[in-house]
């Protein structure tokens, strides 16, 4: 179980935790009585009549990584008239560096379940399903049972065990799993899941942190929600921080806050780090200088070639080879691909090999990074899901942020730190010295 940051209230800028308020360091889940005493009940009638408008006014965007406006997504799901929609609370947090959804499900299940039921009420859903990793299923079922005893939820909440892979949480993969197919993404160009998802019904797949925010908008309204954050990026976000102390730490930060303040890192201390990986393994590298002053805002992160993603921040400490770390990420993403789409199947394999070459045997590239950029351009936007695009974002940002190291590798061979152990959570077992496992190729022989 991830740790909470020592004291979320200690964040500068007057940051007050919202979802996590009152949560202590001990690991017990907040029970139904305590939850209701803290937040009060949700009015399902009110959710049915005005939650969509309240969400639009609140400006809440999805916290699963895409930052898509929640009200726009919900309205598109409601479009199906002949079949009642399905709401899926998505807790399949495949990213190994992220544990904020795990914390929510383990400690604050009722906030998520309130949000799921509120979504169900607002959309007139006939089914509400929680899709959660195996180790969380029992505790979520316990929370659901507590609520059933008191007839809290208008529609009975189902709990389904999620697949344990990086891409399991991708929304078409979630729908496929719930339709008893393999948990892999599907091409949605013709039949999007918002019109044809679980059981062929219009389906909303929403990240569980997003639903926790929904639970509070349903209670306190959009003006309250906008009390933290900025006009363009309202509210707060949960983040998983790595590289400051032992193990991951979860914080809740208001959007718009300086990343340097979230990390509690001064410009002086920042010199001990190579850079920041923002947005996890499908995110992007930022140089320390730019990272500290970056405001938590998806539009700003995109302008810097990264993404807030699901709120993962990994600090890379100074004695390390950022190119070897990048190669590990790409190797991992190559291993975790679904293996369905030709450009991704072939392209990520090539990209992984090229990144490894840049780290370990740069002379084989003959001084050129163009082959890496060519493969990036060849896979971007060509998969059924965004998995390959995340890999290319990491590569492109690395070539930019670590340009000096790229030149040094290409000109003088690998640096002294290529063999150092990885600082990346969950990727310690990836051995760049050994070639990627042989995999089936897709396409013409």
């Amino acid at each position, binding site marked *: 179980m991830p740790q909470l940051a020592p004291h979320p209230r200690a964040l500068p800028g007057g940051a007050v935790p919202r979802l996590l308020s009152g949560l202590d360091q001990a690991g017990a889940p907040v029970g139904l009585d305590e939850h209701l005493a803290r937040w009060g009940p949700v009015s399902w009638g009110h959710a049915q009549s005005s939650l969509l408008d309240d969400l639009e006014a609140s400006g809440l965007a999805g916290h699963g990584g895409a930052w898509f406006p929640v009200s726009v997504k919900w309205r598109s799901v409601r479009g199906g008239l002949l079949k009642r929609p399905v709401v899926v609370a998505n807790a399949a947090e495949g990213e190994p560096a992220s544990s904020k959804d795990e914390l929510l499900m383990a400690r604050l299940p009722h906030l998520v379940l309130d949000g799921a039921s509120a979504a169900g009420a607002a959309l007139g859903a006939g089914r509400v399903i929680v899709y959660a990793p195996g180790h969380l299923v029992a505790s979520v079922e316990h929370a659901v049972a507590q609520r059933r005893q008191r007839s809290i939820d208008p529609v009975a909440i189902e709990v389904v065990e999620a697949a344990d892979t990086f891409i399991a949480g991708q929304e078409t993969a979630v729908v496929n799993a719930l339709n008893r197919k393999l948990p892999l*993404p*599907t*091409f949605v*160009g*013709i039949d999007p899941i918002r019109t044809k998802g679980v059981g062929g019904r219009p389906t909303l797949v929403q990240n569980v942190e997003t639903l926790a925010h929904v639970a509070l908008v349903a209670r306190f309204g959009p003006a309250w929600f906008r009390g933290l954050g900025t006009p363009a990026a309202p509210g707060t976000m949960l983040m998983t921080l790595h590289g400051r102390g032992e193990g991951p730490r979860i914080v809740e930060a208001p959007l718009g806050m300086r990343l340097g303040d979230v990390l509690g890192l001064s410009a002086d201390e920042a010199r001990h780090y190579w850079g920041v990986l923002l947005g996890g393994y499908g995110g992007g590298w930022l140089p320390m200088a730019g990272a500290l002053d970056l405001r938590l805002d998806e539009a700003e992160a995109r302008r810097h070639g990264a993404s807030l993603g699901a709120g993962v921040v990994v600090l890379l400490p100074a004695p390390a080879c950022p190119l070897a770390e990048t190669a590990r990420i790409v190797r991992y993403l190559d291993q975790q691909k679904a293996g*369905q*789409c*030709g*450009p*991704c199947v*072939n*392209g990520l394999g090539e990209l992984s090999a090229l990144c490894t070459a840049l780290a370990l045997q740069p002379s084989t590239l003959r001084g050129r990074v163009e082959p890496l950029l060519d493969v990036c351009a*060849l896979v971007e936007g*060509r*998969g*059924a899901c965004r998995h390959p695009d995340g890999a290319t974002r990491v590569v492109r940002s690395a070539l930019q942020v670590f340009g000096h190291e790229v030149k040094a590798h290409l000109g003088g061979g690998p640096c002294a730190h290529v063999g150092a152990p990885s600082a990346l959570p969950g990727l310690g077992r990836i051995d760049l010295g050994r070639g990627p496992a042989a995999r089936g190729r*897709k*396409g*013409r022989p």
Partner: protein
Amino acid sequence: MKRRLALVVDAVACDGHGVCAELFPERVTLDRWGFPLLDGAGIAPAHLEHAERAVVACPRLALHLKELERKP
């Protein structure tokens, strides 16, 4: 305003047979692995017949004509 159609490929279904590039080289080329490169732009009326033939001939039924969303 008239309907504008564009080619899209279901990359999961596509196995890179290359029939589309054979039948509609004006707008479909293949990458170095044999998978179609599409630009997503509308098909000119004069080309629509070729596009439709490519869609029907795809051995994996991976190629689709999709109506482009109109700009408001």
